[in-house]
């Protein structure tokens, strides 16, 4: 009778010591989609609460970065920029890079800053890093607005390739999600991970073609370099926005790496999430 009983009894939650990832968790995630929306909404609300400071910061930060980059890398160091004015060139790299790092920053610390919620309420924990990754989209949109003005100023009109931009943005978010899942779970278990993040981001900055073109990389290192998914993505951004050389094969490697990161990230995160409340 026992198995029959279980099939009749379709609607119950089973709480067990060890649970493998099941299909029902996907449905559960769907059930909690509104909460994801509320977390994103909260992040944005708080960020722009002191409207003046929040908003101006989003404008000032990339502008100053571009100014500094243009002077030191473009003027002094004469870094090549694939025939594009250097401010535009570096800005096109900074757009995805900032979206990536901001998402990474927020998703890594989100479990700790929301520990109070984590220890009192249940919901699929993955919502938290996910919200941290999506909420910087507002900053991205504002920066993109400034970029558009700059582009028009330099007389650049993007071609038909622009339709691929949303796809590239998705790839940035995907990279941030893959890395963010790993780091947020690791940061709960090992609190010192948080301190390695600025270092990792700085390292990544120089390992990605933000202030220089990837064409500078010697050919024998090309595939190794492409293992950094941001390199292909940044090349892609310049391609669709400024009409530079298409990223080609490196972007495919990037996509492969991203998929691998996300899958492994979800598995690791899911394995650890049940214990977050015990250790956070």
């Amino acid at each position: 009778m026992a198995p029959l009983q279980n099939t009749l009894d379709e609607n119950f939650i089973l709480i067990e010591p060890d649970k493998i990832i099941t299909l029902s968790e996907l449905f559960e995630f769907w059930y909690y989609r509104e909460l994801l929306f509320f977390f994103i909404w909260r992040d944005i609300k708080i960020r722009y609460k002191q409207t003046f400071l929040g908003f101006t910061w989003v404008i000032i930060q990339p502008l100053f970065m571009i100014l500094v980059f243009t002077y030191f890398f473009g003027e002094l160091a004469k870094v090549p920029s694939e025939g594009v004015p250097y401010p535009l060139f570096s800005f096109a790299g900074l757009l995805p890079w900032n979206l990536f790092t901001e998402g990474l920053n927020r998703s890594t610390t989100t479990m700790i800053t929301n520990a109070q919620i984590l220890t009192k309420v249940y919901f699929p924990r993955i919502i938290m890093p996910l919200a941290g990754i999506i909420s910087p989209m507002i900053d991205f949109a504002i920066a993109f607005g400034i970029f558009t003005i700059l582009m028009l100023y330099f007389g650049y009109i993007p071609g038909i390739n622009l339709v691929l931009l949303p796809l590239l943005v998705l790839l940035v978010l995907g990279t941030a999600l893959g890395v963010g899942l790993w780091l947020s779970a690791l940061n709960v278990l090992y609190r010192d991970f948080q301190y390695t993040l600025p270092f990792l981001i700085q390292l990544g900055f120089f390992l990605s073609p933000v202030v220089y073109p990837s064409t500078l990389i010697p050919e024998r290192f090309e595939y190794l370099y492409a293992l950094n998914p941001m390199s292909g993505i940044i090349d892609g951004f310049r391609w669709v926005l400024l009409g530079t050389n298409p990223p080609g094969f490196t972007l495919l490697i990037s996509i492969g790496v991203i998929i691998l990161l996300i899958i492994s990230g979800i598995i690791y995160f899911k394995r650890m999430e049940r214990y977050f409340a015990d250790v956070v």
Partner: protein
Amino acid sequence: MSDNRFSIEINAISKKYALGTLNSGYMTFRETIYGLFERNSSSKKSIYALENVSFHVDEGEVVGLIGGNGAGKSTLLKILSRITPPSTGYAKIHGRIGSLLEVGTGFHPELTGRENIYLSGSILGMKKQEIESKYDEIIKFSELEQFLETPVKRYSSGMYVRLAFAVAAHLEPEILLIDEVLAVGDLKFQNKCLGRMKNISRSGRTIIFVSHNMSAINSLCSRAILLDKGQLIFDGNTAEAISKYFEVSFGKYGEIRWDNIENAPGEQGFKLRSFEITSEDKEPLTTVRVDEAILLRITYRTLKENMQFRIALALYAGGVCAFTILEPEENIRKDIGEYYSEVEIPKNFLAEMNYSVYLSVFSSAGTKNHYCRIPNLTMFQAYDPMTGASARGDYAQNIEGIVRPKLKWKTGLKSRQTE
């Protein structure tokens, strides 16, 4: 088939914590790396926060979960609300479950009251539509109509708690887990919360309710489960569970005895032998009901002839002295030997409080002398079994005051209004 009517089925659940990780669970990565090189030492001790706990809760049942600090109540609620997994065993939950382990979960100080209603409601598991439909009700309950556009960080702590409870109180899952949320706000609001809880408990929902407030447990729950050191030690009738709880947490305070005269407290020829709390018929008590008289009885030995002193017992409750009972005169104890003195506290005089007893034996005639002074001799909790015979009558909510005498009321018509 029959297990379909259970809302909650808990089967042999245990929760083990590695010792030392209770306070700070996380490690640093450095420590883990070092740990790899350490021998598998015997330092890996663990304790059970819950051990082999099983019970069922029927649909619509309101069950109290009681026990001292560290008994495992909160751990159990956390397991049931899926915040933390059990180490062994399993639980089945039939229906949508919501938990209220704290008021103000998810509140953000920078956001306004209105925004926090949405945020907190959503975190607690309400759908946006649900929050919208209950929005007016929530605001009315919180009594904060004019502060909704104010950031919560400018709220007083009372306002904060009111808003938080208002949101929480409108959570309507089929199964509700509640941890100690009644201990919030001023007395008026506490009563309002208790009233709301009563409504919820009558609405046919399944509730597990954790509290240290025994009168709340008593008035809300039809059944109670007592946990002690992670184990289930009683499951059944609420009143019985409560008396077991007092027995477990305060021990047999009905009697404190110093068998060895050498160690007994007292000086200048006075030695305390025992202190007892008994019923009128001298039965040692483990629980004190406010609707029954009790005797406080001390026995002591005099080592000198003609000792003259006065015994005083002060009962402290809620940090203040509720009242002092003292012998009206300084009696002479003529003989050397063992004496007893007892005093009766009449029925319907104590409030539902935790009283601690301060014993003092002294004389002030001539030179002032202290023979014995023990500030925290013992502690006892008085509770109201809610039979209607006590001073509370049929009033079921909180009553302020450190004593609660049952006094006579008289009401009459003084003059009839003619027009």
